[in-house]
């Protein structure tokens, strides 16, 4: 009798639980799972957005993709972008979090300034930076450089500088979020461990590399994964600041997917690109997740 009541209560709890997550589940199925399956399906089709035509083509899109020099270029560009964004973001956000977590004066103000770009619209951020980075001395950045005797480049129209510019503006835009996450971890570090290390004679660098960093490693891992995935999905900064140029030097993978789907109208090929990007991100995430135990000693 008691067991039956318990079973009924468990069932009731389960129904209530499912009912609570049902709205989210419906949204997830409709707007995430369904499009995801559609992309896999489209990747096996020759599909044209403008003409509204589609026919099964097997793995033709993947074969074409393997031979496409622009795909290789977009892949390399994505790696360059991530290689620039991820370390810069992690190093600066960690250092800032350690500084701001120290409770020194003026940290609230600095914290607000750093977090301001996060709440700013990505579109507005990119447009303002496009204005600031104008070539010649028309842009405020070059005007300032000119004052100190440096002739600034045409930031967004010269190959190497265009990528550097989008990396730096992207890092500045998203730095605040990681600072906030790291600050939470910094403030939660066990004070007694740090105090004990200090008593044992650990100086600043030893304290950081031997004590604080290992304690922060679970957060570092999580932030690394999120930042890598975010950097591989960059679109708005590229679209608004460089349009993938000059000469395709900032054509990253997500932008190339957009380029193929909505400008060349080749939705099938674009879907194949999206599938490849999905697999790359999945592999990277799995790799980091599996390797976390080797790097992170304090993960619960």
């Amino acid at each position: 009798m008691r067991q039956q009541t318990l079973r009924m209560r468990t069932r009731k709890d389960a129904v209530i639980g499912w009912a609570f997550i049902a709205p989210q589940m419906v949204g997830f199925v409709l707007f995430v799972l369904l499009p995801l399956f559609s992309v896999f399906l489209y990747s096996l089709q020759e599909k044209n957005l403008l003409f509204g035509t589609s026919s099964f083509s097997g793995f033709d899109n993947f074969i074409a993709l393997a031979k496409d020099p622009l795909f290789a270029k977009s892949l390399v560009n994505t790696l360059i972008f991530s290689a620039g964004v991820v370390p810069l973001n992690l190093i600066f956000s960690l250092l800032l979090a350690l500084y701001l977590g120290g409770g020194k004066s003026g940290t609230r103000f600095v914290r607000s300034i750093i977090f301001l770009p996060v709440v700013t619209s990505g579109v507005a951020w990119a447009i303002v930076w496009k204005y600031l980075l104008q070539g010649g001395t028309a842009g405020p950045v070059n005007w300032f450089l000119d004052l100190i005797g440096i002739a600034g480049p045409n930031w967004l129209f010269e190959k190497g500088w265009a990528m550097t510019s989008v990396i730096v503006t992207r890092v500045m835009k998203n730095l605040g979020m990681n600072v906030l996450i790291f600050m939470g971890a910094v403030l939660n570090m066990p004070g007694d461990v740090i105090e004990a290390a200090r008593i044992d004679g650990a100086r600043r660098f030893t304290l950081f590399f031997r004590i604080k960093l290992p304690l922060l490693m679970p957060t570092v891992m999580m932030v690394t994964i999120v930042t890598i995935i975010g950097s591989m999905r960059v679109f708005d900064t590229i679209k608004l600041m460089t349009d993938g140029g000059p000469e395709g030097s900032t054509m990253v993978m997500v932008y190339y997917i957009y380029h193929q789907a909505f400008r060349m109208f080749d939705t099938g090929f674009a879907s194949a690109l999206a599938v490849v990007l999905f697999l790359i991100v999945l592999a990277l995430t799995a790799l980091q997740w599996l390797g976390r135990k080797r790097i992170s000693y304090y993960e619960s």
Partner: protein
Amino acid sequence: MSTHHTKGSVRALALLLVLFLSLSLMFAQGANESAKVQGPVALKIATWTSNPDQIALLNSFVEGFAKEKGLPITATFESIPFAEYNTKLSLELQGSNGPDLFWVLETAAPAFIESGLLAKLNEGMKAYDPEDISADALELWSKGGNVYAIPFSTSPFFILYNKDLFAKAGLKTPEQYVAEGAWNWETFRMVAKTIKDKTGIWGFQTVDGQGYDARVLHNLAPMVRSYGGDFWTDDGQVLINNDASVAAVTLFHSMVFKDASVVPPGNQSDFFAGNAAMTVGQISRVSKLNESSFAWGLAPMPAGPKGESPVIGQAAIGAHSKSKNVALASELVAYMTNKSSVAAMAGIWPPARKSVLESEAFLTSNKSVTAGQMKLAVATSIKSGRVLPSHVKYPQIEVESKMVFDKLWQPNANVKAVLDEVAAVYTKYTK
């Protein structure tokens, strides 16, 4: 225990499925009910203008048409930025919420006709004297004897200039050079450089400041063609890398990087704000100068070794073949391009109707422009001008060649080598 768990999960999933199906049915039911609703016909019209006066003018045609048909029609105008127009429009047209009527760019005409997204307009046009529309103007919008869109604008590009800056630099006006027969690209180059050297203000800004990206063809075409070159031809010849084209593009490249007289790539200096002495415009842009802080004038495009070769920007309006109101939309397209409508638009968008174009009223149709200017820079150019090249693969050509054209916008670019690469892209798609 785990069996109970599994059973519970299965039931919960079944519940979810039922919920999902019920929601789908509810939405489907809602759609059926809304289809039955009787009331005003709502039409959506896509354009690339966001000028409120121009939208109001277009809306007045809808009102006139509604009155003529005795039907309550309401129109919603959707303004899509020019640089994104083809991309967003195609996406909307393939979706379920596409516009019923939409403007079409001349360069995209073959692709849109081929896609089947444009409805045939032959029947709707019959009531409005179709023979009055220039056959040359209709050619691009027709296929196999059917008309798929009607040009409402056949608008030549011309030079808009800042009179104050010309006076400050001690130069004659472009109109005076025209009168002397000396308004050619060499004079244009000299004028631009003199203004930059003497006033510090840029001599020339490319059309809408987009001459290095979205409007690269608009920017280069007047020079290239008046030098005797071209991009590609209807019979599949690629001419962008011949000697004449290379000479013309070299001239422009030198203006940008040697003379430093043209607003360079990435610089946002604007003619309309007084930051450049000349730009390329159309009659529809002139209203932007109504409240300008400087005196201005307009002149035809300069001539090259092969004479003048004005470029005409043609735009047409078509009806969406998949629209619920396709018949009504087709009739509205014909109404919007009838004689009285195009006469009302003539001051903004020069028409393709011969009767309006040849009338005296056309020359005085734009209050900001004198009859003399209208004749010199617009009416004459319409007769001798040509539209930009178009192709069924234009979206692909545009995107891929833009990446190659980017190489041109460097001080040490090898113009011939870059144009050879552009030619290879053109050949890939046009042969």
